[in-house]
């Protein structure tokens, strides 16, 4: 396997060719903000938080989908990136109805973490207050579309890891939402195995266990990575 060397925020990293800038950053212990990226799942590059600057390229590129190249010089933090990331988060907070105070994921929410990481304490854009619903029809889990940021981790984990493809995105643009089955109540979808992987994959409080109340959702996100590696490498011990 060939190895390429590159610089991430001035740190030299050597990593297998074909890896992503995101993986290289992890190797270099550089934290890159992200929401749609989850180790073990395919990448979609949709949240745009992980965009980085690469010397010699005049476009911002997402770290999760950009392959490493020999001699790359990557900057993950700059005033411009910080400013743009903050705006992305402001847009996300304005788009849904994110009320941390009563959210199951309060204190354990990646959206919240990202807001803190980029210093977003309020949104300069007006809140849209969309009329969205919660679906508690499943016996064990619930989905509250108010808190969904459309990262599609649930869609991917259900399709790629569990193989049930309960979820998909329907509609378009601002009306996009996560749909179960034929836009049925989640509890009515035959394909659901109630495995709970989407609960663990969800970065916010959108998908949760039904008995969880404020701040009680403590997602085990590493579990998916563990599961993927367990299957690939036959290592069933964490």
């Amino acid at each position, binding site marked *: 396997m060939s190895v390429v060397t590159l610089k991430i925020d001035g740190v030299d990293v050597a990593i297998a060719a074909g890896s992503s800038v995101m993986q290289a950053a992890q190797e270099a212990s550089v934290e890159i903000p992200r929401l749609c990226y989850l180790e073990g799942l395919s990448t*979609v*590059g*949709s*949240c*745009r938080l992980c*965009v980085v600057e690469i010397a010699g390229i005049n*476009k*911002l*590129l*997402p770290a999760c*989908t*950009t*392959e490493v190249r020999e001699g790359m010089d990557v900057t993950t933090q700059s005033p411009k990136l910080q*400013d*743009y990331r903050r*705006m*992305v988060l402001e*847009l*996300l907070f*304005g*788009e849904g109805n994110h009320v941390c105070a009563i959210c199951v994921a309060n204190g354990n929410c990646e959206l919240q973490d990202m807001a803190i990481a980029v210093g977003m304490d309020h949104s*300069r*854009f*007006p809140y*849209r207050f969309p009329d969205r619903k919660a679906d508690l029809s499943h016996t064990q889990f619930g989905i509250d579309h108010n808190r969904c*940021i*459309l990262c599609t981790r649930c869609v991917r984990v259900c399709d790629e890891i569990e193989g049930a493809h309960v979820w998909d*995105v329907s*509609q*378009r*643009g*601002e*009306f*996009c939402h996560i749909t179960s089955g034929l836009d049925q109540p989640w509890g009515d979808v035959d394909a659901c195995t109630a495995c709970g992987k989407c609960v663990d994959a969800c970065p916010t409080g959108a998908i949760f266990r039904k008995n969880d109340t404020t701040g009680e959702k403590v997602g085990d996100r590493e579990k998916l990575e563990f599961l993927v590696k367990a299957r690939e490498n036959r290592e069933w011990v964490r």
Partner: protein
Amino acid sequence: MDINELHAMAEQEQLRRKPHRIRYCTSAGCVSAGAIAVKDGLKAAVKDGKLDNEIEISSVGCMGLCARGPLVKVEPSEIFYENVTAEQAASVVSTCHGGATDAKVSDLEHPFWKLQQPIVLENRGRINPERIEEYVQVGGYQSLHKALTDMTPAEVVEEMKKSGLRGRGGGGYPTGLKWETVAKMPPGQKYVICNADEGDPGAFMDRSILESDPHRVLEGMAIAGYAVGATHGFVYTRAEYPLAIKHLQKAIKQAKKFEFLGSQIFGSGFDFKVDIRIGAGAFVCGEETALMHSIQGARGNPRPRPPYPAASGLWDCPTLINNVESFANVAPIVRNGGDWYASIGTEDSKGTKVFALTGKITNTGLIEVPMGTTLRQIVEEMGDGVPDGGVVKAVQTGGPSGGCVPADLLDTPVEYKSLLKLGAIMGSGGMIVMDEGTKMVEIARFYMEFCREETCGKCVPCRTGTVQLYELLDKISKGQGTAKDVEQLEKLSYMVKEMSLCGLGQTAPNPILSTLDYFKQEYLDLLQSPADLNGNKIEATANAPSA
């Protein structure tokens, strides 16, 4: 089929022809202006005069001057009549035998015609798009024959590179380089896609080409397939273009019948087939990765590039994707050589470009001009300016991805580089003229409404940024905005431009940014109170027209 049969087919068509032909335009523009009634009138006149053996009434595709439809052309005298009515049909028929007509003759010396240089539209008014014989009669499929028998794939690619042709869909990537990249990918399954998902409002170049000369596109695709090593092509077209779909379907059927498509074309070892895929109403599918998802039966969500389709496209195979106009240029380039094509146009931009000239302009229609023609020539000379003595305020190019060029910059030549410098783009060819009555904030809002409704919703900046941009524009245009809103509008525009995943989002703020550049005073005049945050009266500094 071999070359002799091809020539024989052309000859036969020549022999079949009657001494006179009257061509009527069947494009949507002329049809909705009454072309069908005119056709019925022409046919009736021929029948009544028992002239069936002498005069042939035949349809052609778009002849360009849509504003003055229905258009009728008489051959071999090559006289164009404008605004023909059913009542005038009989007198037009009579002109074949020296009769007189009160139908208005089009002035072919007018700049509208004179400044055009038809390459893509070279068969305009000359062939019936539904008859392959007519295409062959004007030299059709000879370029394909030449490529397959006289040239290696590498030589074809070389000619394309020499031609300097750049992607006519809007991106402007050098076509030859793209072909070369695909050609150099390891052998195996490769695809050719013709992007006919012409979604820009105000653009109908591709529709017109497909409706009027579908074989030219198929021939271009087949040559491309040969050059890059692909055996399967797709035309992805909008469902909103039923006539284009019909003509294309018919053309494919005919081409298969005469073995211009299929296996071992012209006796070579080259196989190529073309399928049509019909879109279902999604502007974003004009984006190449979204388009490929759509062909594969999925939601039209774009994906990050790289990998580019040339490396990994349809079903992860190397895929060449060009738009209709690009493919329509291929046959002439192969026929006449890349150097010939490169001799037309300017240093930066070679060849010709087709534009749909619309909006507040007298001569709306379809034109093909050499690169380097100035906007002023197009708008004022060819288009005869704004009707009823109005004044041009701006010209919008590139649709929702483009920008507005103000009237004082109309001397800018049509070139990729010079348009980009003005914050506009070449785009696919929509050119919309706006007069003094046009409110630029309103125009920006219109385009943002379009983008807001057409964003696929995958990436955050585009999905929700367009909504917030629209709301800001709406607020400002209603006179409820503040200086802070204008500042936020600009900041957010840059963010959406730089952060969005695909071309739709990356260019969506262009109409805002270019109107902010050239017409900022119009924004400021709409503010709640014309004062900045410090209470000072605000006025735009640069390029503000006196309005």
